[in-house]
């Protein structure tokens, strides 16, 4: 059996403490770094409910470049990329990823610090062919792009 490597890691308490320490030690940006997990969005079982958990109904915005594969080799790992041109849509503070037909559509939300490019690449599970959503929050408003990714039943092996 695989032996788990001992971690020289942080305990949960220290992790939370460290975050607080950092925001005190460094010049605090206009946004407060410690922000709550949008649990309502994460536990929502429908896309509308999940979006409501993020704060409302987003409007489509072309400054959001959302790249997903038209068809995924397997739904367990679907690579996505979200980029926002800061000139066209400034002050983006949060980027969220949702998968419409997942049991819980909310997959991830990222808080982007100032002077960080709005650029996220990650991989999500997609239970079945459906729309994926990139939702960004800028100046208190929600914007989005959506794209469909097809997920097929596999063949034998590969």
């Amino acid at each position, binding site marked *: 059996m695989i032996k788990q*490597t001992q*971690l*020289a*890691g*942080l*305990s*949960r308490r220290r*992790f939370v403490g460290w*975050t607080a320490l*950092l925001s005190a*030690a*460094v010049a605090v940006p206009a946004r407060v*770094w410690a*922000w709550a*997990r*949008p649990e309502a969005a*994460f536990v929502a079982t429908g896309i509308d409910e999940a979006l409501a958990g993020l704060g409302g109904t987003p409007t489509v915005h072309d400054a959001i470049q959302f790249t997903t594969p038209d068809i995924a080799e397997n739904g*367990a*790992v*679907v*690579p996505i*990329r979200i980029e926002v041109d800061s000139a066209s849509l400034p002050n983006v503070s949060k980027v969220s990823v949702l*998968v419409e037909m*997942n*049991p*819980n559509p*909310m*997959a*991830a*939300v*990222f*808080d*982007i*610090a100032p*002077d*960080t*490019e709005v*650029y*996220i*690449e*990650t*991989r*999500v*599970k997609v239970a079945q062919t459906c729309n994926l959503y990139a939702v960004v929050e800028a100046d208190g408003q929600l914007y989005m792009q959506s794209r469909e990714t097809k997920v097929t039943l596999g063949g034998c092996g590969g």
Partner: protein
Amino acid sequence: MSSRIKIRAQHADGITEVKALMRHPMETGMRKDQAGESIPAHFITEVAVFHGERPVMQGYWGAAVSANPFLGVRFKGGEAGDIVKVTWLDNQGGTGEGETTIR
């Protein structure tokens, strides 16, 4: 000694790009094992990327992020030799961290 996070960080044209792969099952809690027993939910709930001591990105994740998760971010600045660190926390209280220097 294997690291639970593999990170690469490269800078070009004033932007540093960070790519991180994390070792984690990201178990949803909805699967059953071969014997029919439920596999408990075990997934990263929080992740953060630091440039030196400065946090550049913090994320909250659900179980829908893929197993052995990948994360790519970019930030302005960064010089060769600067430290980039990635940390995570999961729903069972487990943690992971890794760091690299920018090339």
